[in-house]
């Protein structure tokens, strides 16, 4: 069903987070001010990306990443003009020009470049099309989103936005237990590792910042990235009793537990009968 909105309300990082956590398959189409980007995912991993204004052909991509020379690119453009990416890729590998790894690495960095560009878009409609897949003639990759998300959140400089996203520094952090996510595969900076090393349900974010002599802005940005990448989640600081909800007693003052239960059961019976 509908997954659409405006980048003013949902940042690219948040959208990638959504795709990552929900392990979505399909294409995110983003209509920016001057061009349209299509990012395709398979089971929450990046598979393909293109900007409608760019030549997304394999030849151009290999040339951009210096895997083939300008002369070779020129030759391909005339001799292999009718070949699609898969055919061209096979030809290049079979004739010994490039390896399969060259091709995949070039595609990956090209797709990541496109997403990096998107991080600077602040305006634009997006929608997610769950039926849209990688075009049949294109070579898909399979790239985890965590690193891309962390990279994107490093660029966040807007104090207001970070404060909005993470209003309460008195909360603690804990690692999520999502399958298949290994912190070792994530490229964290020294500052990020410092925060990570203090993660424990007993330490509030404010305490982590203090221990690392980090500003609120810096700790917010780092925690935001870790959160969006789905690596950690917010929890209340352990040790405080938060299991009881004193508001309930206040709402039914002077009643024993049994009387309270009786009352709620009568409410349930009445609502059922409506």
């Amino acid at each position, binding site marked *: 069903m*509908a997954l659409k909105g405006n980048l003013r309300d949902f940042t690219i990082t948040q959208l990638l987070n*959504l795709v990552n*956590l929900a392990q979505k398959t399909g294409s995110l189409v983003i209509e920016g001010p001057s061009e349209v980007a299509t990012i395709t995912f398979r089971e929450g991993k990046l598979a393909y990306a293109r900007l409608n204004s760019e030549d997304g052909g394999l030849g151009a991509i290999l040339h951009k990443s210096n895997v083939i020379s300008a002369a070779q690119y020129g030759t391909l453009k005339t001799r292999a003009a009718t070949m699609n990416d898969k055919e061209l890729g096979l030809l290049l590998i079979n004739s010994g020009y490039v390896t399969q790894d060259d091709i995949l690495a070039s595609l990956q960095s090209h797709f990541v470049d496109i997403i990096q560009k998107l991080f600077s878009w602040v305006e634009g409609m997006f929608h997610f099309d769950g039926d849209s897949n990688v075009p049949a003639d294109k070579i898909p990759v399979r790239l985890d989103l965590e690193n891309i998300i962390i990279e994107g959140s490093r660029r966040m400089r807007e104090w207001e936005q970070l404060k909005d996203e993470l209003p309460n520094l008195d909360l603690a952090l804990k690692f999520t237990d999502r399958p298949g996510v290994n912190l070792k595969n994530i490229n964290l900076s020294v500052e990020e590792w410092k925060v990570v090393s203090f993660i424990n349900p007993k330490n509030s974010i404010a305490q982590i910042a203090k221990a690392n002599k980090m500003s609120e802005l810096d700790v917010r940005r780092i925690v935001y990235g870790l959160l969006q990448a789905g690596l950690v989640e917010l929890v209340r600081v352990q040790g405080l009793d938060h299991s009881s*909800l004193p*508001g*309930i007693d206040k709402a039914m003052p002077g009643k024993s537990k049994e009387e309270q239960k009786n*009352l709620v059961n009568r*409410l349930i019976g*009445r609502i059922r009968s*409506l």
Partner: protein
Amino acid sequence: MQTVKMVVTGPFNSGKTEFIQTVSEIDVVSTERKITSEAEKIKESTTVAMDFGRITVDDELVLYLFGTPGQKRFDFMWEILSEGMLGFIVMVDSTRPETFKEARAILETFRAYAPTPYVVAANKQDLEDAWDLDDMRIALRLDPDVKLLPAISVDRESVKTVLLELLTSILEEL
């Protein structure tokens, strides 16, 4: 006579008044105003003080449903309304992702006012533009143990289900 109250809160236009109206035995629309500002003119009227609905349980017990105003400039009412509530419902318009962040902020605010059980209702699920619940849960950053329920405020059975889920959560806390 014993009275208990539950609060229905959430962003502007999310369907709070409609929700209460659907199950209330009295007419709730007491404090609606015509909207004058062009910017907010996506509908005819808005709640300015509160909605007030009633469900009589038996001779000794009455349930009041209070709806908060959705517009931020009336949020001075929120704390007053939350006083002594048994639980609360956060209504979210599933078709308007631009309000999700505010919904999250409202949820946090009410949780701080009075620590009571709550559920989140993903309203207007009958509309084509409604977001999926799984996506909303991530976008709203709700913990796995928070109840996020599909809702249609204009549908009585749906409203009953949301109320029953909240009451069940309350019972579980006792």
